[in-house]
Every structure is written in C-alpha cells, then in structure tokens.
C-alpha cells in the first residue's frame, strides 16, 4: 500500500501548488469530490443494507399487544418490550435444536465439499491430466443450477415411489435406504449442497493453483519430488489462503442453509418448519406473522455468524497468511 501512495504524490504536483493558492477550490477537490463520487454507493448501501438492518434491530425490541378479541381496527398495537424477544429466542429449545442440526450438517458437508474440491483442483492441475477442460466444466456445471431446482431434482431421486435408483435396487432385490427418513435426511440435504458446491470451490482453488509460477515445480522435480509430493508439500501450502477463504464462505453458507430443506420439506415427514435457524425465522415472520421475534432471531444469527467467522479467521490466519505479514 505504501508504493502507490508515494507514486501519486510524486506524479501529481499540481494540486500541491493549488493548495497554497485558494482554499475553496482545494477543499472542493480534496474533500467534496471523492464523497460526491462515492455518494451513489453510499446512498444505495444506506438504503438497502444499513436501513433494513437498523429497522430489523428496532423491530426486535417490539411486539404486538392485542386488546379484547383483537378484531377490527385499533385492536392491535406495537409496544416496546426490551430484550423479551431475545430471551425467548435464546430460550427456545427449537432454536437450539436447529442450530445443533446446522452444526452437524456443516461438520458433514464442509470437509467433504472442500476435500473433494481440493482433490479435483489438484488432479486438474497435475501434469498429464487428459480432458481437463471438459472435466472442469462438468464439475463446475452443477453450481449453475439454482438450489431450489437441484433440491427438486434430488427430491425426485430420493422418493422411493418415483426414483430410478430405487427401481434399480428393487430389480436387484436389494434393500435401499430411505434417504428422506429422519435419520438420513441430513445426509440427503448435505449431498445436494455438495453436488452444487464442489464445482465453485474447485474453481477458486484451481485458479490460485494456476497463479503459482511453474519454476517452483521444476525446481522440486530436479530435487527428486514426485507429483504427489509436489501436490501435498508445495501446492497445498501455497494455496492455503484460498482454502481458508472457501472454508469461511462454506461455513457461512452452512449456517444459512434454507432453500434445500424448505424445498424438500413437503416431500416427507422428517423436516420440521424450524429445521434450520433461517427456516424458523421465515416461519415466525411469514407463517406465524410475528416479525418481531423473527427479527430478534435474525439478529442473533447474524451476530453468531460474525463471531464464528471471526474466531475461525483468528485461528487459521496465523498459519495461512503467516508469510504475507
């Protein structure tokens, strides 16, 4: 960061001369212009990010108070309740259970997804890999399928009555597991996310592998390293920052899982309307028409996500980005 700054100072002596000349124009160019140019971004950010967040926080301290039968006009009013919604959200066993499920889901999904992504990226980058272009597109393609669509597709495959897999299993006389039963449904959903997510993470890792100068590999070869050695001892440590980044994104995506279980829910008895934290927020806000407690739960989820991401970065940063400091 220090280099560009000194370069600008050296290359633009004109404003420096002006500064001594007149105060007004210098103030305009030095202070107002950048803000004017930033203004569209700032306005959009304030209107569509900051304001909704502030409003959600405000809502989380309110609730509806009904008088009488609650029918007709004026029977409902909004009152301030302090931390009541937060206490209720944190004390709700359903919320705790949904967080537990999501953590287990992440434990199943993230290592599998990143492991496969890394494996594919290394294989594609290895010397002598054939049809690399085709494989790259084929692995990436599921990422282009929206989560709702892929959940519908997989839902079909999971239903014993209509699935070709079960048909084959039946024909062979084997007992197929009921993926949508309550014991296995978590793996079924993780599988959908895995199918959709490996490609994206693979591309991120593959891109950073491509940025590694090939002389390093040649040097390693001369020292007698095999392809596997190069992959594990050179490539993986070099692309560690991108592995950390994809882990962080996957972790956040895991906590926010919503589309897959929501789409699969009507197909079985094993997914409740509060199966994940965000499903609970959606149910409270739009099915139960209680946006106040939904807002409180959202704030809790946002803070937890922030905290978890921060802790994660704190733990891995030293190791991954150590050489950059």
């Amino acid at each position, binding site marked *: 960061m220090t280099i560009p700054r000194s370069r600008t100072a050296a290359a633009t002596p004109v404003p420096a001369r002006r500064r001594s000349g007149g105060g007004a*124009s210098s103030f*305009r*160019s030095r202070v*107002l*212009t950048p*803000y*004017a*140019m930033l*203004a*569209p971004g700032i*306005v*959009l950010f304030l*209107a569509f990010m900051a304001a909704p967040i502030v409003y959600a926080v405000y809502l989380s301290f309110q*609730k*509806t*108070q*009904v*008088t*009488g*039968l*609650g*029918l*007709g*006009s*004026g*029977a*409902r009013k909004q009152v301030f309740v302090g931390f009541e919604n937060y206490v209720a959200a944190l004390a709700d066993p359903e919320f705790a259970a949904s967080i537990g499920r999501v953590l287990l889901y992440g434990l199943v999904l993230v290592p599998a997804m990143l492991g496969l992504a890394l494996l594919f990226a290394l294989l594609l980058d290895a010397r002598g890999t054939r049809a690399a272009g085709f494989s790259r597109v084929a692995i990436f393609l599921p990422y282009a399928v929206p989560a709702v669509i892929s959940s519908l597709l997989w*839902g*079909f495959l999971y*239903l*014993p*009555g*209509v699935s070709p897999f079960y048909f084959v299993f039946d024909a062979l006389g084997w007992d197929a597991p009921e993926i949508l*039963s*309550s014991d296995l449904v978590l793996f079924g959903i993780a599988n959908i996310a895995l199918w959709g997510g490996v490609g994206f993470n693979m591309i991120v890792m593959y891109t950073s592998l491509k940025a590694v100068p090939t002389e390093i590999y040649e040097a390693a070869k001369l020292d007698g390293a095999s392809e596997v050695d190069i992959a594990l001892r050179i490539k993986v440590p070099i692309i560690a920052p991108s592995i950390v980044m994809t882990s962080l994104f996957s972790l956040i995506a895991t906590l926010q899982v919503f589309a897959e279980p929501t789409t699969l829910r*009507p*197909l*079985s*008895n*094993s*997914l*409740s*309307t*509060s199966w994940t934290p965000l499903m609970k927020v959606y*149910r409270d806000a*739009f*099915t*139960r*028409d209680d946006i106040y407690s939904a807002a409180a739960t959202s704030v809790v989820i946002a803070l937890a996500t922030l905290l978890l991401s921060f802790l994660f970065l704190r733990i891995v940063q030293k190791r991954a980005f150590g050489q950059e400091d």
Partner: protein
Amino acid sequence: MRKLLRAGTVAVLATTALITSGCSTDAGSGGGSGPVELTYWAWAPNLEKVVDIWNEKNPDIQVTVNKQDGGDPAVTKLLTAIKAGSGAPDLMQAEYQKIPTLVSADALADISDGAADLENHFAEGVWSSVTLGGDALYAVPQDTGPMMFYYREDILNQFGLSVPTTWEEYADVARKLHAADPTKYLGTFSANDAGWFTGLAQQAGASWWSIDGDAWGVEIEGDATTTVADYWGGLVEEGVIDNKPMYTPEWNSALNDGGQVGWLSAVWAPGVLAGNAADTAGLWKAAPMPQWGSEQATGNWGGSSTGVTTQSEHKEEATEFATWLNTDPEAIEALVKTANIYPADQAGADEALTEPPAFFSNQPDFYEVAAGVADTVSPFTYGPNVNVAFSAYNDEFAKAAEARTRTAFTDAVAAMQDITVADLKKSGFTVK
C-alpha cells in the same frame, strides 16, 4: 473538478429518484371523474373471464383481476400492504380460515351495510365463517369444499370390498385391502395438510376456537379431535394406512398406478385427480364421508370468499361487485363453467351444476351426491391464529406420522393445543 462535482450531484439525485420512484406505488383507484377502477387480488383460475362479464355490463365500475400465487402468499402480501398503509387492492380472495387473521389485522372492512339480506343464499356453517358469529360481515362466500370420500371403484370390486359408510368399516376395508395387496392403501395420513385434518375433526364435531365475551377459547385438544387423531394413529401404527404426505410426486404416481385406492377429499377433487392422474378417468367414484355416528356430517376443506379491504376508497362499489360475483345466477354459472369452482350460493349451485365433471362422467349423480353432502357441513369457528395452529399441525403430526404410534398422534393434538394457546397469550389475547 467543478464538472466532476456536478456529475456527482447528478448521480446522487438520480439514485434518490430511483429509490423514491421504487417506493411509491399506484393504489389504482380512480379520481373524481371517469369510471371507478377496482383492483381484485385473486388466484382462482380463469376468474378474469367472469370479471369480464361484469366489466361489460358496468362501464362505471371497472374491475381488474391481479393474479396471485395462492392463498398463503396473497395473505402475506395483503398484511404487508396493510402495515405499510398503502398498496392493498380493493377486493381480495380470502380463504375462510384466513378471515379472522385478516380481520384481526384490520385488513377486511365490514360490508354488512352494502350486502344485507344475503344470508339465505348460504349454508349456516359457511355464513358463520364470514360473520365470525357477530353482526359484521367481512366477506361474501364464493366457493366451499364439503368433504367427500373418493375411491377407485374397479379396485374395490376386484377385491370384493364394499364402500365404507362408517369409520369402523373404513378401517376394516383398509385392513383387508392392504392384506390382499401390500402395495395398496385405502388412503394416507398427510401431516402436510392441516386443512384436511381440520375438516376431519370438524366432521367429528370439533370447533377449535370459540368466542366468549372478550376472550377466545381454544379447544383443539377435545374429545372430537382426540378421537380422530387416535383413530388415524391406530391405522398408521397397524401399517394399513400410508403415512406419507399428499401432493408429492410419489403420491401422484400412487394415484395413477392404484397404490392409493381412496382419497378423503373435497368437492373440488375431480380437478386435482384430472390433473394428477389423468389416465384413471372414469375409474373413480364419489360417496359421502364415512360417519362416526348415526347423524350424517362432514367437514369443509378449502373454499374461499371475496372481501373488501379497509384501504379501498370505493367500498360501496366493491361490495356491489362482490355480491354480484357470488350470488348473481349469470356470474355463478360462469364461475362453475370457467373457473371450475363449487359455488357457496346453494340455489345457484343447484341451478348451475347439472352435468357431472368430465372426469366423473361415469357418475351422473355426482353433483346430487355433493349437494346432499354440502347440506351436512358441521359448524366450525376459526380463530385469530389459525396460521400458528396449522404450522404446529405440520410439525407435530409430521413427528407422529414418522413415529407411527397411536400415542404420538394424541400427543400431537396436545402439542397443537399448547402452541396455539401460548401464541394467543403472548400477543395479549385473553384466553378462556
């Protein structure tokens, strides 16, 4: 620099204009001159064709149908518009179970002045759900869904089984059918369809909410509902009734290939069967529901009404339209023929429904059976938090259906009661 600054200002202004224009919405109401323009949020198929008849006859009151995705999303949208203070339509298609919620959010206007003497058009149970048992009128009933029992005549004949008329016989037929062919079920217990279970409880005599002075009563956990839950829990535990939800690809395929031999549904079932199991046309028959006691009774599943919103600036004209749409013989005939609904107006229904639905051409007396059943719908009062009770049904009965035990089913009823009462109390309602 001056130029740049000006460009920045323009950008800010443009952005602000963009935002404010995005926020302002046209309420769509006419001014002082010209025809009155009404907007109507509805999702019934082809309803706009019925509205065209009105528009042709009434150049002064023009109605525009604004298509909605369905009952739940339309209610969510309307409640949001009411909270925002603008953006609501003049008229709204509202399902019966949503009316207390909408009235409670001050979304539906009392139209009892403009639509007097309508009471004799409708069955008592239907009328009570649009008046909430008081003097106000919150909507004009449009269609109803009296429940009936649909069965595959060919398959029951094949196994020498007769059509059950009591629940005891239904259980018996379910057992014999499943024993004769383990891939076949007489029905399924669907934890996804709260309205369906409500209809079954209604038939047994349940009425989940009640008004007592300034307090609401909740009686989900009562004899009637518990009896129904216990009965179905028993059948699911035995394994003679399927436990998978309805309206899944799997269920559709079972309707087609004979895996589901019967369906406890409502008068609108022919449309669903024609769409989901077209190849089975002419193989199904409709009969009254199996009965608990000697007196004929049934429940209601589905159906909706036309309400006028509190934000409408032309409530009088809107009420006039709603009354015409649901009680005028010409409108009702059009509703039956083009929108395929079963009208709530009893006299109109008798007149308009002469031919059986094409899917049931094998049963010429289809609508006679339906009219007989529609007369026996038990009264039922919905409360201000039907949404909460219904989502509790989804969760609790899903667990019970997965557990496949009788006690899990009655426990689910108790849990529904607790969740519904707790929600009312949390909002500050007085619960009796």
